[in-house]
């Protein structure tokens, strides 16, 4: 099993963190995982993205030019990654912000109103956690919800219980939405 | 508002919503608007036209030089 995922969006949308939580969850499960950020000028103002590869074998390239999975948080990222998706891949996008709906027919497309759900959970800033919940469903063959929630706690800490609650709620809403949408 | 002569003209595409102009305005005539520009920022706007004394502080403070300030010809009494 080798799966890869691109997470892309604005700098402030927490896409790096989302990728790291998934990589951490994999590591904690004893799987191999790589997390590769885009860095540098891309970051400032423009889009930020990272690539996660999860595998039960040794991972060769941490970088993928034809992602199987993608979480797309804004329009510029959609423009950048839709054409790169592997045929048969799954593209999940934040339908609250992304107005440019994917046109490709050879990929699975999942629209998740991440910001809406996040606000429902208590903070628009937890849109990335909504997407984590979505990924929990999408990669349910790899992770339990518990796996990802534990990794999330390890990553963001549990010092601010209120924030954690919001994040968990967002996660749950995402998981639910994904179940419905897919 | 549109038929009143220009006092403060803000190029909304250049604005980065830093609020420096808002804070510096001695008469509190500026604020951050609800609009959103293509970079995702809410640009500043002049919302108290009459208060504005055209001092130019906002313009000289704006790091983006997104603001122009004009002094309408005054009809002397």
């Amino acid at each position, binding site marked *: 099993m080798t799966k890869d995922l691109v997470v892309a969006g604005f700098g402030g949308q927490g896409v790096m963190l989302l990728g790291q939580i998934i990589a951490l969850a994999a590591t904690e499960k004893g799987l191999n995982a790589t997390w590769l950020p885009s860095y540098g000028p891309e970051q400032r*103002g423009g889009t930020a993205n990272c690539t996660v590869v999860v595998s039960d074998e040794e991972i060769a390239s941490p970088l993928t030019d034809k992602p199987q999975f993608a979480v797309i948080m804004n329009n510029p990222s959609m423009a950048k990654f839709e054409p790169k998706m592997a045929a048969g891949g799954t593209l999940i996008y934040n339908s609250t912000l992304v107005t440019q709906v994917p046109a490709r027919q050879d990929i699975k497309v999942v629209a998740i109103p991440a910001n809406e759900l996040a606000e429902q959970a208590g903070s628009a800033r937890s849109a990335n956690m909504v997407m984590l919940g979505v990924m929990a469903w999408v990669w349910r063959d790899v992770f339990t919800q518990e796996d990802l929630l534990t990794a999330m706690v390890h990553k963001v800490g549990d010092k601010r219980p209120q924030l954690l609650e919001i994040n968990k709620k967002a996660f749950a809403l995402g998981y639910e939405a994904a179940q419905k949408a897919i | 508002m549109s038929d009143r002569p220009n006092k403060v003209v803000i190029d909304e595409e250049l604005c980065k919503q830093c609020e420096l102009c808002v804070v510096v305005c001695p008469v509190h005539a500026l604020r951050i608007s609800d609009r959103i520009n293509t970079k995702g920022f809410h640009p500043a706007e002049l919302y108290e036209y009459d208060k504005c004394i055209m001092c130019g502080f906002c313009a000289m*403070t704006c*790091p983006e030089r997104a603001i122009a300030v004009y002094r309408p010809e005054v009809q002397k009494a």
Partner: protein
Amino acid sequence: MKVVYERPKTLEKVTNHYCPGCHHGILHALIAEVLDEMGLAEKAVGVAPVGCAVLAYNYLDIDWIEAPHGRAVAIATGIKLAHPDVLVFTYQGDGDAAAIGLAETMYGAIRGVNVTTFLYNNAIYGMTGGQMAPTTLLGMKTTTSPYGRDAKREGYPLKMAETIALQGGTAFSARTALFNPKMIMETKKRIRQVFELQMKGAGFTFLEVVGTCPTNWGMSPVDATKFAETEMVKTFPLGVYKELKEVE
């Protein structure tokens, strides 16, 4: 209708890459305004640093060269001696001009090279993501002084305007800031003054400008501006430290 303020002609009409509220943008604009007012844009050459201002060449409509990190004054020296009739200035960060480039900057002053250096002092390495600068305040946390700058461990903030003022070839050395309209006007006045001095062949002119780095200070632009006004100036007192009155 009288124009109180319009974007200066020499400031290219593009969105710069600076973070919202960063004072780099103000300093750029002031230089552009003075170049416009003095009619010097055609005769000016800017030397861009390595630092957040590395792309300054995209923002002012004059000739530019991008120098290796810290070497702006050396580059400027070469240009000025090649063409003594052009106005040459360097635009540098505190890391660029006062850490890796300290010797080059000092020798501009020692040699009395007839160029102008603007040092944007934001007490941090902005471009590389918030490491300690020579000018980082005591107690300030940065990614390379994670426990807060401690004089015993990380040394003392370097006072460039004062140190440069001490050198023989310095025609002008001062420290200004940009945290309110008065200081912005003061800074603009000084920019004009140093350009005038350079055109008269006075020697090395140096203007340290206290600025902000909202992003790496972890503050809103408004708070960062306030921090510059209340905290930065304690370590970096504003004022003129050397001023040649007569130019032979």
